[in-house]
Structure formats: structure tokens, C-alpha cells
């Protein structure tokens, strides 16, 4: 028993360490471009881990989480942009937002809370449904957010870009955000709520028979996950400095879900690993698209190769290991295997295959 405790609680710490090593490496050696890529990677860790908290633990695929990201991102813009810019871009904001200006940490908190609140309202309505229906409802939610935000011009700037959000997210802010998110996800998994939700993922009827209130467990995870997603959206906005509603739609959803699925939908290590693998791959491919100096010649891949290769890699990754690169394994277990080398490894592994 003690061994399992060590495994589960050490995973988030190991993951934070890996991210820390990446961040330090980028801070010490990288130029601005790679540094930006690293910040983006860390922000994506926040987003994908947030999705994982609900999707990974409950087994219900949510297509709507990017909606919470949009809510968080726009909330960030409402709170931190200069009043002068706000008056130009979003004149319909209520007076206290239009004239006021909140400091970055408080704005982050409020953005996350707003997304969490919307998550609570939405979750109460849709999480009683069977999982596939709930899945479709989350998609409907994404469509609602998209069309409200793209048409409510006076408050969201409509389909125009909102430019001029103070860019407060540097490498360490992004790292702290990712660390908080990974640790919260890790802790949540350890609580009885997390374990109960995992039970419902594996076998709904048995879970109910064991006295688990499925709706309640799902709702807890959904709200936590929506809150962190809003937090991630706010970080994203404060990283880019510019947002527009089409950035929070299908391609973003697909990208984030693909990272989760390729890494392994049912493990925290999978969520973080998926982001790291795909982000680094994208970065390398983008570099190749720009061209590599080989002697006197520059060799460049044609524009668009990045998307194609990325697609192929995802297919290959999933064909070779069906539940993602990490499957249901956690980093803590892997580390433990090194510790107890030679010991027979036998532990029940639930999987989504």
C-alpha cells in the first residue's frame, strides 16, 4: 500500500520536475523564439491537464473545454486592458470594467472563477445525461460560446482581434501556472473524489452499486476542470497579448484533444507528455519549414508540411500504442520501476482500449 501511495503522489512532482528542467534549459540556452515556444508549451500543459482532469478521469470526451478557455481569455482582456483601448474595442462593457483595471494575479483568479461558474451551471444541466449525450452537449456549448462571443460586438469586439492585453506571462509565470495545474490534478486524483470518478470511468454500474453518486463526482471534476481551463485561457491571453474568437474553436479543440489522446488519455503523465511531444515536434517542423542552412544551400520544407507530418505522427503513435504513448502509466511508476529493479511488476492496469 505504501508503495502505491509513493507512486501516485510522486507523479505530479516528477512531472513538475521535468517541466522545470525544460524551463531551465530554455532559460539558460534558448533564444527568444524557443523561449516563446517553451512558454506556449507550458500554457498548453495547463490547458491539456485541465481537460484531462475531467476527460481522463471520467472517460467522457469533452469538446467544449475550449469554450471555458475563451471565457477565461476574454475575462482577462476585460480586466487588464488599458481603459483607453477598452473604450475603442469593447465600448459596451459595464462601467466598472470599462474604467477600472485590475492587477494581473487578481484578474487571473477572477477569470478562472468566471469559467468555473459557467462550468457549474453547464455541468448541472448536462452531466446527468449518458456520457455520449453529455459529450455532444459540451460541443453544443462550444458552439454557443463561439457564436455569442463573435456576435456580441460591443462587449467582445465581435470577430475582430482584441489587441493590447498586457503581456505578463513570462517563462516563470507560465511554469508556475503549469506546476499549480499539474499538482492540483495530481492531488485531485488522490482524493476519494478522484478515485470514485475513475471507478465510474471503468464500470458505471459497479460504481453505482458501490454507492458512488456519479453525477456529483462528474460535476466536481467538471467544475475544477472548467476553472483551470479558464485559468489557462487567461494565461494564454496574457501571453499572446491579442485574442480573437476563432482561435477558440474547432482547430484549438482538435489540437488540445489530440495532445491528450496521443500522450495517453487516462494518465496525467500522458497529458503532460502529449503536450511536450507534440509541441516540440511542431517547433522542429516549423524550423524545417523555414529552412535549414546546409553548406551554401538552404533546404526548406514546403509550407504546410508541419500539419501533414503532425497528422501522420499522431496516426503512427496511436496505431503503435492504442491508448497513447503513455497509456495508463504514470511517471511515478516508471521511476519506481528503476528503484525496485528486478522486482516483479504486477499491478492491475485499467485501460480504455
Amino acid at each position, binding site marked *: 500500500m505504501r508503495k502505491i501511495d509513493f507512486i501516485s503522489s510522486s507523479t505530479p512532482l516528477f512531472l513538475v520536475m521535468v517541466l522545470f528542467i525544460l524551463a531551465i534549459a530554455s532559460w539558460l540556452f*534558448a533564444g527568444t523564439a524557443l523561449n516563446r515556444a517553451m512558454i506556449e508549451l507550458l500554457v498548453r500543459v495547463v490547458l491539456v491537464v485541465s481537460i484531462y482532469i475531467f476527460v481522463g478521469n471520467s472517460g467522457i470526451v469533452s469538446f467544449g473545454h475550449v469554450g471555458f478557455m475563451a471565457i477565461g481569455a476574454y475575462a482577462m482582456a476585460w480586466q487588464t486592458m488599458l481603459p483607453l483601448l477598452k473604450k475603442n474595442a469593447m465600448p459596451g462593457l459595464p462601467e466598472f470594467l470599462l474604467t477600472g483595471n485590475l492587477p494581473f494575479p487578481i484578474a487571473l483568479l477572477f477569470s478562472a472563477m468566471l469559467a468555473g461558474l459557467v462550468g457549474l451551471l453547464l455541468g448541472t444541466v448536462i452531466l446527468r445525461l449518458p456520457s455520449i449525450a453529455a459529450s455532444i452537449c459540451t460541443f453544443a456549448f462550444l458552439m454557443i460560446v463561439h457564436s455569442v462571443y463573435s456576435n456580441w460586438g460591443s462587449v467582445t469586439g465581435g470577430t475582430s482581434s482584441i*489587441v493590447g492585453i498586457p503581456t505578463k506571462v513570462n517563462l516563470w509565470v507560465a511554469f508556475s501556472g503549469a506546476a499549480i495545474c499539474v499538482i492540483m490534478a495530481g492531488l485531485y486524483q488522490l482524493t476519494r473524489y478522484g478515485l470514485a470518478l475513475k471507478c465510474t470511468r471503468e464500470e458505471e454500474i459497479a460504481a453505482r452499486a458501490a454507492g458512488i453518486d456519479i453525477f456529483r463526482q462528474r460535476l466536481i471534476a467538471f467544475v475544477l476542470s472548467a476553472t483551470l481551463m479558464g485559468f489557462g485561457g487567461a494565461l494564454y491571453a496574457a501571453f499572446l497579448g491579442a485574442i480573437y474568437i476563432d482561435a477558440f474553436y474547432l482547430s484549438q479543440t482538435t489540437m488540445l484533444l489530440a495532445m491528450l489522446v496521443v500522450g495517453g488519455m487516462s494518465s496525467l503523465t500522458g497529458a503532460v507528455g502529449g503536450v511536450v511531444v507534440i509541441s516540440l515536434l511542431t517547433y522542429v517542423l516549423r524550423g524545417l519549414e523555414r529552412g535549414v542552412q546546409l553548406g551554401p544551400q538552404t533546404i526548406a520544407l514546403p509550407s504546410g508540411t508541419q500539419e501533414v507530418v503532425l497528422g501522420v505522427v499522431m496516426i503512427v503513435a496511436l496505431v503503435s500504442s492504442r491508448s497513447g504513448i503513455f497509456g495508463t502509466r504514470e511517471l511515478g511508476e*516508471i521511476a519506481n520501476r528503476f528503484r525496485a529493479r528486478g522486482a516483479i511488476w504486477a499491478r492491475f492496469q485499467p485501460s480504455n482500449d
Partner: protein
Amino acid sequence: MTRLPMFSLLSIALAAQPALADDSSITIGFAIAKSGWMQPYDYASRTAEMAIEDLNNKGGLLGKQLRIVSSDTKTDPAEGVRAATDVIDQGADLVVVSCDYDQGAPAALAAVSAGKLAFSLCAGDPKMGIEGVGRQAFTTSHAAQTQGAVMADWGFAKKGFRNAYVLLDDSIEFTTSACQGFEYRWGQLEATSIVGRDSFKNSDASISSQITRLKSLNPAPDAIMLCTYPPGGASAVRQLRAAGIETPVLMTMGMDGSYWLPAVPNLSNAFLPAIGLASGPDPDKKINDLIERYKKAYGEPPATAFVFYGYALVELWARAVERAQTTETEAVFAELEKMRDEDTAIGPMSFSDQLHIQNKGRYLIIGIEKGKSEPLGYWNSPEIPKDVIFKQ
């Protein structure tokens, strides 16, 4: 499970890319769309490259050769930020961004916050300047209002129009601004009136109810100001003519280019302003030479007159650098703000500490007669005050 350490090694290896900045050259970075729907609009970068080539042939700028670096925004504003950072990393002294506010602003913002000058190829929105992005952001384009205003002026003086009807496609900011400019100028001209106003959306399949209202107007208008763009614009013109309305139609530069003309066979009595006649031959020798050169280099004439902005962009910036004797951002933008009626390939251009977009300009009026575009001579748009441009 040796994957993760390998990735950290990989990232360190990638970090060891050489920095490319060196002092013997000046670098112009293009953070523009080279794929996606924005790409053809950003062909203005092609004439910018021609201008850079010309400068290099004359011995460069401040005795240094100009070097071009570029990065693809993939028609994605978020990628735009990355593209801008990318070209700055490669040593760009000037960052040229996409031909549209929404697409170009994030990249411009990234450039400005890195302390560089951002110059949009042809964003027609005044927000691509002090108010939207910052003092270091400029756009070569003319404010959309000048297009409506120049048609008002020209129609009044050359054609004797007095009673106008305004038909506005209010689906984008550009057309709304153009019609606003028309009404502003029309109101200043003597004995003119607007006999009716109506609006539609570019995606509307039919404008028959607008046409019915137009037909019942008394007095009938002697000109229709139609602010729109293809494909909805072509459909609107076709419906007007099919309904037997032969009233002259005044349009905006959004309708520039001959590609939509086959949709309205034998269209006559339609007029629009443009920077030049893209399909050639243009009455202005400088623009005509540019068209010939473009044809030779790319095997086709420019699709629209927007491409000419690129050449003017480099001309203006290079002149500011020459006057400042440095590429330092502060000095260059101070010189840019001093520019009044600066002669460029596409007519005189100005900036001020209030406006980083053109609030007046020289347009070639293009007449469409029997389905063919023909140049009717240059006409200057009146100056539009700042409060009209910002709709305050």
C-alpha cells in the same frame, strides 16, 4: 522510458541556433501570410521586395545592403505573433505585417513591444496605428473613408450627380467606413441630398426588397453609392441591373479587379476608385512600370491594386531612415510622423503624430463600360478629419 530526457536534450540542441544579426546589413522582416486565405492579399509584399531590390541596386541604405527575412503567419493571428518574434530574432529592424487589421495587429503588437517599428502593407483600419497598436505602428493604406469621399467629390464635379442613394453592405468595418466617408463629403457639397439609405449583408442571396424600395423613391437618385465587396457585391450589382435600374453605380476599392466582371455581363456606368489599374495599362508611368515588372517576375498581372502599397511602404520607410541616419525605432518613427505629401510611386502620402494612416489620397477613377475597366484619370480625395475616421 528514456524519451523525456531526450526531449530536453533536443531542446538544448535546438537552442544553439546562431543569431543572424550583423552590422553590415539592414534587415526587413516580413511577418505575413504565405499560406491560407490571406496570402493573395499579402502579395503586396512582392512589390515591397521590388522596392528593396531597387534600393540595393542603388547602393543600399545608409551604405548598407538590405536583407529580407520572412516568416509565415499561416493566416492565423496567433501565429502572427510567433512570426513577428521570429523575424525579430533574425535581426529585423522593421517588421512588415499583413494587409488587414485583425490579421496583422497581433504581429504588429509583438513587434512594437519588442521595440521595433511595425508597418502594415495595407490595413485600411485606422486602429492599425496609435489607438489600436501603439505609436510605432503604421499602415501605408488610405483610410476607407477616403474612398467614399473621393467618389462623392468626383461624381459631384465630373458627373454632376446631386441626389445620391446609399446602399451599404454592413457586414464588415471597411464598407461601413467607406459609406460614412461618402456621406461626410456629400454633406459638404452644395445642393446635394441623400434620397435614401438601405443596407444588406454580403451573404444575402437577394436584395430584392432593397431594390423595391429603391424603385419607389421620389425623386429618383442620379447615383447609387454601393459600399460592398465580392462576391456579395457582384451579386448586388447584377440584381440592380437585372431589375432595370440603369442609374450610375459608385463603388469602393473593395470591388477593384476584373475577376468579378463576367458575373455581370456588359456592365456599364459603374465607377470605382483604385490606387492604379492593376490589369494595366495605367496612365501613371511609375505604376505602369511596376505592373510590367510584376508581370515579368510572376507571369501574371497583379490581381488587385492593393499590391502597389508594398512599394510605397518601403519607399516611405527608407526615406525616414535616410533622414534619421539610423534604423533606431524612435528616430525613424519621428521622421515618419513628419512626412507631409511625400512623393511615392502611388501618389503623395503623409503621416502625423495623430494619424498613422492616410486620410487623403490620390485615386485612379476606374470606369466600367460594357464589361471593360478603363482609367478615367486621377482624382484626389479630400482630407478626412480624425474624428470622422475614428467615428467619434
